């Protein structure tokens, strides 16, 4: 990395920095209050248990849930897996049909695939060009033997928000469980599982300025009471749903991270949105051939996913040294395949390869946003200078329609 002044972290959908206030809250639980939360026989154990239960209340409050409905896990991936594998296996007698969407995170799609290998049928819904499902398609896909629908709230790559209220209502009407991966929105947006009628919901601490290695699964306890087959057994922690010594400091940090999110949200969301809008405005007005990926309005406040035509995303990333942004999803970006999300949205491989995700978060400043805009504009212009395709585009020729010949 280059010198400290040019380091800008703008990848807040991949992960966030732990808020110093969160870290502060965790510190006593590393050394002074270190009882094993399942060890009820001494005072340290009690104190740890109390801290965990307080955090459970805080996380529940952020979701409109009751504390007893929160199961702590190691992260959203585990939460998603418990929800999907657990519900499918528990209700296998009802049926073996599941519904999800092509733009889901791999932590939803991969367990679905695993179940497919075990004999379940999985319907993968497509989306419109903005990444939203068609509710009619969902309605048609629901069958007598459908056990679970898993559709996320906010997409991690393009930020598009799914119509979760309508999805939940449709599932309720048909008596099908609804799981929502809310990793990108829990704490950041108002979610009321009770009012919406969500049955299972996954979230994670490290996306809301909490530590990595801790997440939660909301499991509805009434109307209906959702039962799941656990993945991890032994010890019976978390009401038997997730055995293993509780990560007390991590859980305490998660609770505090959620509390801060709720406390700051009214001020924070507009501020983050304004920074994002400013970046979008500059990049789309000062550069040509820039396409917004995702929904123009129904999207995460901090997300900006743009395709810079005639520029390779990877080259642009390198041109932005010292600035942390992503091309495609962080969790799959190690591969050079175009993002499955953009592909599902029919963005086209060329534009998908030229996409960059800017993730604005709590600690970003307007100076940073201006710097990122300056540097991005400069880098895109420089890269395009070397691009014959861009030159053709300027002349009004669509390079995709050009018939290349051997002498060209």
């Amino acid at each position, binding site marked *: 990395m280059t010198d400290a002044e040019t380091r800008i972290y703008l990848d807040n959908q991949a992960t966030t920095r732990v808020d110093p206030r969160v870290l502060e809250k965790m510190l006593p639980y590393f050394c002074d209050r270190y009882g094993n939360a399942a060890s009820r*026989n001494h005072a*340290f154990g009690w104190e740890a248990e109390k801290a965990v239960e307080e955090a459970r209340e805080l996380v529940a409050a952020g979701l409109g849930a009751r504390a007893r409905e929160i199961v702590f896990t190691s992260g959203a991936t585990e939460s998603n*897996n418990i929800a999907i594998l657990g519900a499918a296996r528990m209700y296998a007698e009802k049926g073996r049909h599941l519904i999800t969407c092509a733009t889901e*995170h791999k932590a939803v799609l991969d367990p679905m695939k695993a179940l497919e290998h075990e004999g379940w049928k999985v319907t993968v819904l497509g989306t419109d060009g903005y990444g939203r499902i068609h509710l009619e398609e969902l309605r048609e896909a629901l069958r007598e033997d459908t056990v679970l629908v898993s559709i996320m709230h906010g997409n991690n790559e393009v930020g598009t928000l799914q119509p979760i209220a309508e999805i939940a209502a449709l599932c309720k009407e048909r008596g099908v469980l609804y799981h929502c991966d809310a990793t990108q929105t829990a704490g950041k947006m108002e979610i009321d599982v009770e009012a919406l009628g969500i049955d299972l919901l996954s979230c994670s601490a490290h996306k809301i300025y909490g530590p990595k290695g801790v997440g939660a699964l909301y499991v509805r306890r009434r109307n209906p009471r959702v039962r799941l087959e656990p993945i991890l057994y*032994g010890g019976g922690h978390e009401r038997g749903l997730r055995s293993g010594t509780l990560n007390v*400091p991590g859980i305490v940090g998660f609770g505090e991270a959620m509390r801060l999110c709720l406390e700051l949200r009214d001020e924070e969301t507009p501020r983050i949105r304004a920074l994002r809008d400013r970046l979008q405005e500059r990049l789309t007005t000062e550069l040509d051939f820039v396409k917004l990926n995702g929904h123009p309005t129904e999207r995460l406040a901090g997300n900006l996913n743009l395709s810079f035509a005639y520029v390779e995303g990877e080259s642009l990333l390198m041109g932005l040294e010292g600035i942390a942004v992503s*091309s495609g999803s962080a969790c799959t970006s190690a591969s050079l395949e175009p993002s499955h999300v953009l592909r599902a949205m029919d963005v086209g491989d060329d534009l998908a390869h030229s996409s960059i995700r800017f993730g604005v978060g709590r600690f970003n400043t307007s100076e940073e946003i201006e710097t990122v805009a300056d540097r991005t504009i400069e880098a895109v212009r420089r890269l395009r200078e070397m691009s014959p395709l861009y030159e053709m585009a300027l002349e009004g020729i669509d390079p995709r329609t050009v018939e290349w010949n051997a002498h060209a």
Partner: protein
Amino acid sequence: MEPVLYLDHAATTPVLPEALEEFVRVCRELYANPSSLHGAGAAAARRLEEARAELRRAAGAEGYRVVWTATGTESNHLGIQGLARRLRGRVRPRTPRVLAGALEHPAALEAARALEAEGFRVETVPADREGRILPEALEPLLDGDVVLVAVQWVNNELGSLHPVAALVERVRRRAPQAAFHVDAVQALGKIRPTVASTGADSVAVAAHKIGGVRGCAALFLREGGPEPRPLFRGGGHEGGLRSGTENVAGAAAFARAARLRREALESEPERFLRRRRLLLEALRRAHPGLRVLGPEAEDRIQGGILSCAFPGAPAEPLLHHLESQGVLVGSGSACHRHGASDSPVLVALGLPRELRSSVLRFSLSGSETEAELRRAGEAVARALRELRVAAPGGG
């Protein structure tokens, strides 16, 4: 009031200051997602790989790869269920057999038992009177249908050491198609033999038992050995074996703690056994009739654990009396919520019921002073007096 004397380190251990420092440093400076391609992501990924190498060195796990997980429970599931599922094809169409030691921790035992629903036959390998699983007990159970054998290295309640290298060797000879999983959660940092010396296929360890941060654990997998089926999926982290954003800070703290523990053991190989002897003397002064559970011979125990039955003294009030004096100890395993009286380990040892309900487990950090260990004995003596337990003049 005197400071709290915490003697329940087998349940969980306070984080070592150096490990905490590392955790906080990574949270502050290397917080990016290690899967991200940018410089900040690469720096986090580098730190994760450094931690992997550091943990491997500290555990003496040459020839093993490290897979990060969240808990010892998860590591045991990945080793046991993951390997059994991977290898069941080797004995198809016959019923695959899984053998688990009789004294396994619930996390391992229930991981094995859950396989029954998938068509495995799960059997236990009996322990001897000292609480050890011996090759002679394992041998008659081995045949061509066994796909997995799981035996812990150290029993969490008794501190007994199982001869895992000899058990592994027996399995290689009699059931070469089977994998061997070792739960080493109570062994790492507490005994000197290396992970590589076991020859096992998978070895589970957890950070919070050695002064790392909770929420991080690992599974060592023998290079060239069978690869477990993942428990959960999504993103393909850890070579596809364990998806989910890596807990870089937790891994860094774990590795640092493991290294410090290794260094402490190398500089003072007897650090646990010596303290255990002092503690036992102090406890015998308080109750000459106490009965030490598990092996007598020191080469058969992990010195950090001392379990004793105090005849005539029910464990629970004893525990509370000790607590009121600021001395915190355990009764049986913290990971299950039954009373000590129905601890399956104590039942398997053949301990009579009245003794089973009088068991306390003392477990050490390895840095207790002589005065602290004496204080533990005096606290027990005082508690017994208040409980009006007549301590018979034994021995």
